[in-house]
């Protein structure tokens, strides 16, 4: 599904964010990428969505070599990869429904299709009864679930979650992780970037550990080792 061949990303002479990373993520996997802040975890996410170009190596997603992806092709790639972030990235002046619908509107989705799909994904994330509320009227966990719903509207094959629980208490964090596991069960490949030891150890899934830009560990049923 996702293959990284000797990927190196250099920001400056003294800052090598990724160092000769080799990786193979299979379809339907749930993997956690762990590591301390500034070790290159988010850089991996950015290279996977075409936000950053690698300096050496090759990235292939679903057979598509995106190493030198053009600006025109990036939107096509991003419609196949859902992304969620620590800060939710919701629009406060739009309702939860409108926030999710927005992702379809800006990609040319028909109004009829939007009316059908948005309630469906809101149901998946358990927020069908709060669709008319605004982000500030719901909890942080619910906001993150809205972000997940938004990431799901294009039926992505891959869901990238960059520190999705970073702003949440343990209860809400657990709810979000449970949701990600459920989405993974539907067949979506989930890549969770986190430094939350407790969550990683509880998941008992594949864990990649990044340290100083190097992939230092790849365990099939891993633990947080740093």
């Amino acid at each position, binding site marked *: 599904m996702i293959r990284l061949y000797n990927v190196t990303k250099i920001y400056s002479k003294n800052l090598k964010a990724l160092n000769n990373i080799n990786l193979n993520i299979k379809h339907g996997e749930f993997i956690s990428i762990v590591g301390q802040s500034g070790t290159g975890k988010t850089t991996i996410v950015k290279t996977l*969505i075409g936000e950053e170009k690698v300096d050496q190596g090759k990235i292939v997603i679903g057979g598509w070599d995106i190493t030198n992806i053009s*600006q*025109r092709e990036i*939107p*096509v*790639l*991003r*419609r196949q990869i859902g*992304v969620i972030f620590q800060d939710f*990235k919701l*629009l406060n002046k739009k309702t939860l429904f409108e926030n999710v619908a*927005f*992702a379809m*509107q*800006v*990609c*040319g*989705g*028909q*109004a009829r299709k939007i009316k059908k799909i948005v309630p469906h994904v809101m149901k998946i994330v358990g927020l069908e009864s709060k669709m008319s509320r605004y982000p500030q009227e719901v909890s942080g966990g619910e906001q993150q679930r809205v972000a997940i719903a*938004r*990431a799901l509207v*294009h039926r992505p094959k891959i869901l990238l979650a960059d520190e999705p629980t970073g702003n949440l208490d343990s209860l809400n964090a657990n709810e979000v992780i449970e949701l990600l596991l459920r989405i993974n069960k539907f067949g979506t490949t989930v890549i969770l970037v986190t430094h939350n030891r407790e969550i990683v150890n509880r998941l008992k899934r594949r864990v990649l550990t990044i340290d100083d830009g190097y992939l230092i560990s790849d365990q099939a049923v891993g633990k947080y080792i740093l």
Partner: protein
Amino acid sequence: MIVSFGRVIKFSIQDIYRNIWLSLVTIIILILALFTVNMLLVVKVVGDAAVGAIKDKIDVNLFLKNSAEEDEIDALRVKVSNLAEVKEVSYISKSEALESFKEKHRDNAEILEALRELGKNPLTPSLVIKPKDLEIFDDLINHLNTFDDEIIESRNFTNYKLLLTQINNITDKVTRAGYLLSGIFIFITILVVYNSVRVAIYTHRRQITIMRLVGASRWFIQMPYLLSGIIYALVSIIAIMFMFYPFLSLLQPYLETFFVGYNINLIEYYYGSILTIFGVQFLAAAVINMVAAYLAVRKYSRV
């Protein structure tokens, strides 16, 4: 595609509305620029009309002796008509000259009284000569000066060329000042539109980030800002149309007083060419705005 275009228009109007004060400033600057351009056009129309009016009036008079016989006058008339520089020659008799004089000074009681006291017609018959072209006016004068006919009493060669040169100089200077002013306003417009779009992008930076993340195309992200440049131009053109006609209505009576007897109707001119005048101005304003918006979008929309 149609759905996306509809949304682009919606987002564009939202962008303008959310930065309403900045949008108003942009539109006011555009209106000022368009007003200057239209003033330039008015100066050109009035200048052309003034030159036309004077050209129409240009003639040379050969005043003849009272004793001149009809056959002598006819002979001179034929001689003058045969000149290459002459378009038309007409004969004004003594009595016609008097009638014309009285008509011209019908409101001046003193002149009419003086004429009455004189008791006889003091005017002489004349040949009124219209030149073919103002460029060869000097040649005509030179030719006429060589005529040494006995029946010629005097010659009136008013220097119309100098008058026209003066009018042309004035209109040229006003036009140059207008071009300079228009240039300044266009430059200010570019700066203002550029900054309006920049602020609009800043206001929507979170929205743009999300659009990029969820896979919106670059066209879809950038188009609302380019479109707002067209909307600014459209609103400004409509505003200037509503503002300029009352302005012309105020100006028209003064022009009519100044150009008595000549048909200079700016309102008619504008009504007659409304689509061309404002269509071209709209296109020019839209292109300028889009260029300014594109420069801002290219630099700042990568949020």
